[in-house]
């Protein structure tokens, strides 16, 4: 790593980037605190007004935000948990166990990362329609429960972080595979599991293409689907739309404030190995 010290100009430019990154989010909150008439004036507002409470409550009822947030939390939580557990199991098998067909199966896992999701979207829809799952949350949870990226990520991590001797020692003590997983693999993998969990959670929370298709009737939408409904009125109330956008984004921003460093570390780690 090179450790050249940054000059003042670097800080100025980075400050501008930070401003560009954060400004649309801050402005969402500003717009959400105004009213529609004020947003239809120039210059646009640069500071908060007094309408935040009213707009949030209108967005909350109009877009059924309570249900939507709950649904999204359930979807993202289940998807993240499933992906983490299944990826760790498979990653462990690929990194430290030996079995017939191992190489071929791993190639298959990596290969699936290259296939665009649109390619399966029509039959997937036909499948969930056949099962009468449209508008039910399992239609978005089950297809997302495993991830090739996750398997690959955990394999790379465990191949490096889990010493083969540790597994051997547990074996010599007569531990079954499940015990090895529980007492050796999970503890060693915990940091990577946390990172994978957060990345998956963010991705599942923000997923749009498939939920819009699968949750068509807005019976039990996720936040992202609910937001598309907010803008559809004849005279859309922009400040209410912004309040909805704010509601849908806040939980993730909270995750970012709390775990931002770990998420950054995870993305950089995955990048080097991937």
């Amino acid at each position, binding site marked *: 790593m090179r450790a050249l010290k940054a000059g003042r100009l670097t800080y100025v430019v980075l400050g501008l980037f930070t401003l560009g990154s954060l400004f649309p989010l801050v402005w969402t909150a500003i717009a959400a605190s105004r009213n529609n008439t004020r947003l239809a004036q120039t210059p646009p507002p640069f500071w908060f007004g007094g309408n935040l409470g009213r707009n949030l409550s209108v967005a909350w009822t109009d877009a059924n935000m309570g249900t939507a947030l709950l649904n999204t939390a359930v979807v993202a939580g289940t998807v993240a948990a499933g992906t983490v557990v299944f990826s760790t199991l498979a990653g462990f098998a690929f990194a430290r166990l030996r079995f017939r067909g191992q190489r071929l199966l791993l190639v298959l896992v990596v290969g*699936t990362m290259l296939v665009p999701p649109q390619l399966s979207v*029509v039959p997937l829809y036909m499948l969930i329609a056949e099962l009468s799952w449209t508008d039910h949350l399992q239609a978005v949870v089950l297809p997302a429960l495993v991830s090739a990226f996750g398997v690959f990520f955990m394999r790379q991590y465990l191949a490096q972080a889990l010493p083969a001797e540790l597994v051997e020692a547990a074996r010599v003590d007569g531990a079954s595979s499940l015990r090895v997983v529980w007492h050796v693999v999970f503890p060693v993998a915990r940091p990577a599991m946390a990172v994978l969990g957060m990345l998956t959670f963010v991705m599942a929370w923000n997923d749009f293409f498939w939920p819009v298709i699968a949750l068509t009737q807005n019976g039990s939408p996720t936040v992202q689907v609910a937001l598309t409904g907010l803008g559809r009125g004849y005279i859309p109330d922009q400040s209410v739309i912004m309040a909805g956008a704010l509601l849908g984004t806040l939980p993730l921003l909270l995750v970012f404030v709390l775990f931002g*460093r770990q998420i950054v570390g995870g993305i950089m780690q995955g990048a080097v190995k991937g």
Partner: protein
Amino acid sequence: MRAGSRSQAWRSRRYRWDLRWSPYAFVAPFFLFFGAFGLFPLLYTGWAALHQVELTDPDAMTWVGARNFTRLLSDEFFWNALRNTVTIGLLSTVPQLLIALGLAHLLNYRLRGSAFFRVAVLTPYATSVAAATLVFVLLFGRDYGMVNWVLGLVGIDAVDWQNGTLSSQLAVSAIVVWRWTGYNALIYLAAMQAVPPELYESAELDGASRFQQFLHVTIPSLRPTILFTCVVSTIGATQLFGEPLLFNGGGGATGGADHQFQTLGLYLYEQGWVNLHLGRASAIAWAMFLILVLVGGAVRLLRGRGEGR
């Protein structure tokens, strides 16, 4: 004694059985779910593309052979969507990766508050397509949007971002650039930190300036990573869907009044879930896949040539 040896034999049998089959049990969930919701639909798409299938009755499939595909060839909206996907893809991917490269270079300096800057530039990544697009629609508003207001300050006339062809495509691209630049910067940063410092030291001995070092040491060392991000961004650009859908306001899946920013992903959605033609949607999905394969082949060919020299 006998009972003990018997139980020992049973234990060792169970142990061998466990050793042999548990790997399969551990990889089984992935392959089960992937088979049901990934591989099966993937293969079935080809089959559906050869049929007339309507969303209203997905079970009734009529064989039409290659008609869905031949139809695409003479479908002006398909070519329009393809053109738009390419231009929006270029408008979003090229600036995004160039800015990310410069940003990563800055983040690679010894910085005070480096953790803060990294998290800050990644924050747009946490924002959903839906929320981000709704905000940008307002920022790009014709009469009261902030972008036009700023342009007005420097004496540029208001731009009708939503209704122009280039302007709407620029605006849609801006959303993509905003959301993904920080993410790509972090990927570049990780690769930069893996460059051996000796390379810089010897370049410095040769009298290379910092900018020359960036050009002749950093960029070549990053080549695999740059290629990787190009591939990922290209795949992302072909799939562009949420931004053009929501940038249309309440206008639906047309991608603007003149389809001026309708992408292939959006056209697929319009054919399948607005016009209810699932067979045609499948054919579009295959066309998208073919285009990706062609792009991949072209990249390979170019790369092979570059290395052969």
